[in-house]
């Protein structure tokens, strides 16, 4: 058996964990998608309806939030000595707060989109199409809220008063947040083409 076992770069559990989480989330939504396809095939009660145009606005908001997050991540990563070693420059943190705000805006927008659909008389139980719409958006929303929680945690770790030692898992949080974009784009395509 070989004796050379030291990894080239020190592993980052947070990052690994996020990758695994991403895999799981993909699996869940894959299951739901297949459920949707099966349910739609030969169902007389499937009802097509127009997606609220607000969804597209929300999409832009979410993408923008990803942009600001990536921007501040780069800024903070650029600090000599790596994250956590120094007090990060204000702009970096500022970018994170903007991201946070945009994230909240997205969630609010999604809720408003629900209200619009409900106003059209499209509820969870109205038709399988609307049911899947609410399920998809709700589950995605929950994951986004989780991501917001992660960002708050990262911010708390980046505060100058935060205990040194382990670096704040900003990279991991950013990875997850970008994945939320990708997931949402996928869902948007699915919903736009099917319901």
């Amino acid at each position, binding site marked *: *058996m*070989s*004796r050379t*076992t*030291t*990894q080239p770069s*020190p*592993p*980052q*559990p947070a990052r*690994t*964990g996020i990758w*695994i*989480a991403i*895999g*799981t*989330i993909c*699996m*869940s*939504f894959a*299951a*739901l998608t297949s*459920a949707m396809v*099966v*349910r739609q095939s030969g*169902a*007389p*009660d*499937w009802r097509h309806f127009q997606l609220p145009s607000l969804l597209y606005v929300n999409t832009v908001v979410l993408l923008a939030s990803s942009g600001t997050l990536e921007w501040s991540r780069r800024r903070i990563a650029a600090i000599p000595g790596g994250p956590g070693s120094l007090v990060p420059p204000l702009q970096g943190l500022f970018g994170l707060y903007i991201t946070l705000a945009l994230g909240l805006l997205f969630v609010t927008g999604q809720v408003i989109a629900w209200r619009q659909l409900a106003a059209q008389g499209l509820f*969870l*139980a109205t038709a*399988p199409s609307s*049911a899947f719409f609410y*399920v998809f958006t709700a*589950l995605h929303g929950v994951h986004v809220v989780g991501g917001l929680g992660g960002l708050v945690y990262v911010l708390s770790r980046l505060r100058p008063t935060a205990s040194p*030692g*382990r670096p704040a898992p900003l990279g991991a949080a950013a990875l997850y947040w970008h994945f939320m974009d990708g997931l949402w784009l996928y869902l948007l395509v699915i919903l736009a083409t099917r319901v």
Partner: protein
Amino acid sequence: MTQTTAHHHAPPQGFLRTHVFSLDHKVIGKQYLDLALVAVCTGMVLSWLMRFHLAWPETPIPGLGRVSPTGAAGGVITPEYYLALMTMHGTLMVFFVLTTAPFAGFGNYFLPIQVGAEDMAFPRINMTSFWVTLVAFLVLVAAFFVGDGPPLSGWTAYAPLSAVGKDAGPGQGVGQTLWAVSITLFCVAQLLGALNFITTTLDLRTKGMSLARMPYSTWAWFITSVIGLIAFAVLMPACILLILDRVAGTSFFIPAGLVISDRLQPHSGGSPLLWQHLFWFFGHPEVYIAILPGFGIISHILPVFARKPLLGPRVLITCLVAIAFLSYTVWGHHMFLSGMNPFSATLFSVPTLIITIPATIVTLLWIGTIYGARLRFTTPALFCLGFVSVFVSGGISGFFLAQPSIDTYLHGTYFVVGHFHFVMGVAAMFGIFAGTYFWAPKMFGRLMSETLGKWHFWLTFIGVYCVFMPMHYLGLAGNVRRYSAFTDDYLKPMIPLHRFITIAALFTGAAQLIFLFNLVRTRLRGPKAPDNPWEATTLEWSTTSPPPFDNFGGRPPVVHHGPNEYGGNSAAGDYVMQASPDSAGVA
């Protein structure tokens, strides 16, 4: 490396932080094991009640009338209460015993130690995972006490019976909803657990612990986590859809035009088969989630008592991976007769039969390991041998059920019950027993009584054969499962055999009291255990019994050898510990 493995949290102070809301993977592992112990005792009592009712349907069970006035007025179990007992037995055993004990329990305790880590990668997530599991357990048990009784649609909860609500009969109201909520929570918990297992295995291995040098138990837990990650990720949304059908009036699984209890159900277009597909896509891999840790534990323990390297370790890993992969291609073999396109039956039958190849090879590896060994017949060793025996017995009957043509006759009979109880129930339990007797000295710092252990083994080993082998005979005679009484003319002649099974089950169950007593006594006041009582090689035996809070007293071990170096001669004896720098030759 030290940076990432640096302990994330200081040793806790106070009872609550140390024993209840602990972040220590060892405490969490023990909490999982204790939860499983409570669940398995409950589940076993339920099976006693069922078996008693099947043997003597009209004999009142003293006291039961008081426990459940509606379910068993006067102590006589009603049909719906029988089905509720069956549902709860299945759910408790599959989810809260066979998944928590060998995987979450032992895995939590020993995976980090075996890779030389100080704790799991995410201790807080780890703790959350346990407490969510506990809540899921409590929610499930709560179903016993709701107005219209516990759910009765089996652990598979086939829609629409499970989806239409109380019109479908007693227990299909709140109880069934609680069931679905409980399983959803359980999925979340297991996903968090699997996340931790995988990350820890990938990132927190100590210096020198290459993948090739990981103990086989660690390998099994790692592969199981990957299976679980996918399986529970599918069951969770399925359960959410089921809950919505029940409480929100959606129609994912409920078609149009159902008349239940004289009422036309207000649903349309749903697909009952969709639930079956989603459930079994989880359900079959779940079987391997239950049994693969057993594979790992046996492969880990057998060489220790054979004093001989495990035969073909790389073959073993390859087989485990193959099984994990194949487990996702076979779910349809539960649905040969479900009304799905008959052409797909063959597609699902072939991989099902192919799975028997890696399974057979693994069995041969164990038997080949025993060849030419110097077996030390300790209790854990006996349970390893017993595991091989019952796994063979259970696996063989899979040959029949994997074939659609034979399934045409055997599907839904006791043959199936005998099959899965042997292969995933009893076998997994033997793995758990082996693990408990083997690791108790490390977990509790005390040795379990060998005498009691051996009594426990012999009674259990003979007992399970008396209970589950006859079920295959019943199945061949066409005895349908999930019946609360045998009123059909052709089933009446089988009641004597059912009585035999019941008596055997009561005795086998009673034999478990020996184990309970032994376990409790050991934890309270057993003889102090040395650090390495079994002369084993892996890292958990390089530290104290029980291990300190950070597992290795602040000095992460450095690994120089594989886990499999038995039968040679070194300073230590006929084995070389993974952490020992000594590079003695090995046979």
